């Protein structure tokens, strides 16, 4: 009961502190806005693509009709399909870079050869073909059931812009605003360590620590209440930031918002415990905040909060893997963009484990010390 009272006071307290609000709300939102718009170029997939030449060889008669329609359709988008002339090796042509791709259609299906699969051209081709195949499969299914409808489907399909489908592919990569919405949020969640480091120090500097100790309540209640309050208020801020970025910046937060919040919650728990732990390890009033600030800054830098760190090598790999943000971001990105929740568990476990460690240190030091 006393615990809740203290937690509630902490929340009120933080909420009325204009600095907290500015720091925890305005700061990430402004950063998102600035970084997200300023660094658009680094992420922009809206690259003008030259016309593409694609060779094809069709040995599957049943497909020749729809495939022809398809090639005509994509002609408008600048993809020129040419039949493979005799004596030409389609694969060689691709290797030599004379054409952008080579498609061979046989009984077993489509075979696409491109130079670099990850290149934009490659993905566009892939996307276009994939959507064609999807649609063809659909048609063939319909043909089996109701042959008369097949025509309708194809006539509708003609209106489709196949290239439009390729947009699905770049969508799998976040845009700059999407990227910064996530990394800023995980970063600001880590900044909860700042309020954690001030949690006890603040009572000391306000001299109210003595009042709390003099009152007939357990030291444990003071500690847990304060940590709880801090977690709640920080979580509230983070939720507001997420909501704002989603509604105003239209950042992509994926379908599993619950899991994202779970990761963020454990991260806040870790951050607050870290701050509290540091404030107990270093007893001077100003130093803990400095230490926390430096650690969080470094973690942000190497965790990819300011610019993405892709495939780091050597020492950078070690350093960036030391940053807790690397794992948090990986977990969230994989969840949002790949529906892959396999990194959620490790991230949560790491957060809770480290939080436990720091809380253990703090409680040990808290119980032993005099006063607060």
């Amino acid at each position: 009961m006393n615990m809740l009272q203290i937690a509630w006071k902490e929340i009120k307290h933080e909420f009325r502190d204009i600095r907290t609000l500015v720091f925890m709300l305005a700061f990430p939102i402004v950063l998102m806005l600035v970084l997200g718009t300023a660094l658009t170029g680094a992420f922009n997939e809206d690259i003008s693509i030259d016309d593409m030449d694609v060779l094809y060889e069709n040995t599957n008669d049943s497909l020749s009709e729809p495939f022809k329609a398809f090639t005509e359709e994509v002609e408008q988008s600048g993809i020129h399909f040419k039949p493979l002339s005799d004596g030409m090796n389609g694969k060689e042509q691709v290797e030599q870079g004379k054409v952008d791709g080579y498609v061979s259609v046989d009984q077993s299906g489509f075979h696409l050869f491109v130079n670099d699969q990850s290149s934009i051209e490659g993905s566009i081709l892939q996307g276009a073909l994939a959507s064609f195949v999807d649609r063809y499969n659909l048609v063939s299914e319909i043909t089996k059931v109701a042959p008369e409808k097949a025509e309708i489907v194809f006539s509708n399909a003609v209106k489709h812009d196949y290239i439009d489908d390729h947009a699905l592919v770049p969508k799998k990569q976040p845009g700059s605003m999407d990227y910064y919405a996530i990394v800023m949020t995980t970063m600001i969640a880590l900044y909860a360590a700042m309020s954690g480091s001030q949690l006890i120090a603040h009572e000391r500097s306000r001299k109210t620590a003595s009042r709390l100790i003099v009152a007939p309540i357990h030291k444990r209640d003071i500690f847990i209440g304060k940590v709880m309050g801090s977690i709640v208020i920080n979580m509230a801020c983070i939720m507001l930031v997420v909501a704002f970025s989603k509604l105003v910046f239209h950042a992509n937060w994926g379908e599993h918002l619950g899991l994202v919040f779970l990761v963020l919650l454990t991260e806040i728990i870790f951050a607050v415990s870290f701050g509290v732990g540091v404030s107990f390890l270093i007893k001077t009033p100003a130093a803990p905040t400095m230490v926390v600030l430096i650690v969080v800054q470094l973690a942000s830098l190497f965790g990819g909060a300011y610019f993405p760190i892709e495939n780091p090598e050597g020492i950078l790999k070690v350093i960036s893997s030391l940053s807790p943000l690397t794992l948090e971001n990986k977990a969230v990105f994989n969840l949002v963009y790949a529906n892959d929740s396999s990194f959620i568990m490790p991230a949560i476990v790491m957060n809770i484990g480290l939080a436990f460690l720091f809380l253990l240190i703090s409680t040990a030091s808290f119980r032993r010390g005099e006063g607060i």
Partner: protein
Amino acid sequence: MNILEIQDLTKKFDDFIAVDDMSLAIAEGEIFGFLGSNGAGKSTTINMITGLLRKNKGSIMILGKETSKDSEFVKRHIGLIPQEIAIYEDLTAYENVKFFAGLYGLRGGELHDRTVEALEFVGLTEKQKSYPKTFSGGMKRRLNIACAIAHQPKLIIMDEPTVGIDPQSRKYILQSVHKLNEMGCTIIYTSHYMEEVEEICSRIAIIDHGKIIAEGTKEQLKSLITDSKLIFIEVKSQEAIDVDTIYKIQGVTDVKVDENTVQIHTELGVNNLNQIIDYFIRNQLEIRSLDEKEPNLETVFLTLTGRNLRDS
């Protein structure tokens, strides 16, 4: 019954001995003053009584219970008014008092009533919705008091409650000390303002270097040094003065006549000024001036420790 009993209390900070084998008993209903210079060990003693510091040796009993054993019971009956203002700037006056009173187990309607009472007691009812940011130093001090009394403690400990405030607030605080005492609270009052302690305390301990070097009512303390006060009466002419008659006045121990000034030594605590003046009037001796020199706690402190209270 003694509300507080201290036996052989000792506190060391590394090799510095802040409180040195101190023993003390305070009865219920007293206003007990701790008098000493800064660093004499007053605050350390108080911090050990309230449980802010652990003692190295000795025992502290409050209401017959050892503080380190029954700390919850003991803490419930203590109200600490700390030396520095200890309130939350971003909670209103009402919220501050309510929060601290809530820590003492008060709930619901009772909590509200006590909070309002406490604010009324310190005269901040009108300001209860305001934030302490907007308060003057004296008002903050008063709020500081309200936060410590809402749970109606039996023992109130005031650690230098009048440091750095205007005379009006100081008067207000001293009055509230009296009022709290009349309401049945025992009060421990520490200060290095001699006049305050002399004015309000029923018993005083002079503390220096962690030891109680003297203890008693202010009369007892003064009598340690001397048992007489001096009355100087300047008259127009000394011719008609009959020293023997003055000697007969109760309490007078010595009379000297020096030119036109009569110097009368008289026992402390005997109120005979009226009789003395009466003698001069009856004998039609014209009094030009009258001066009384009585020892005060300042002199006691100075004499015992060799230092002024405010030196260090």
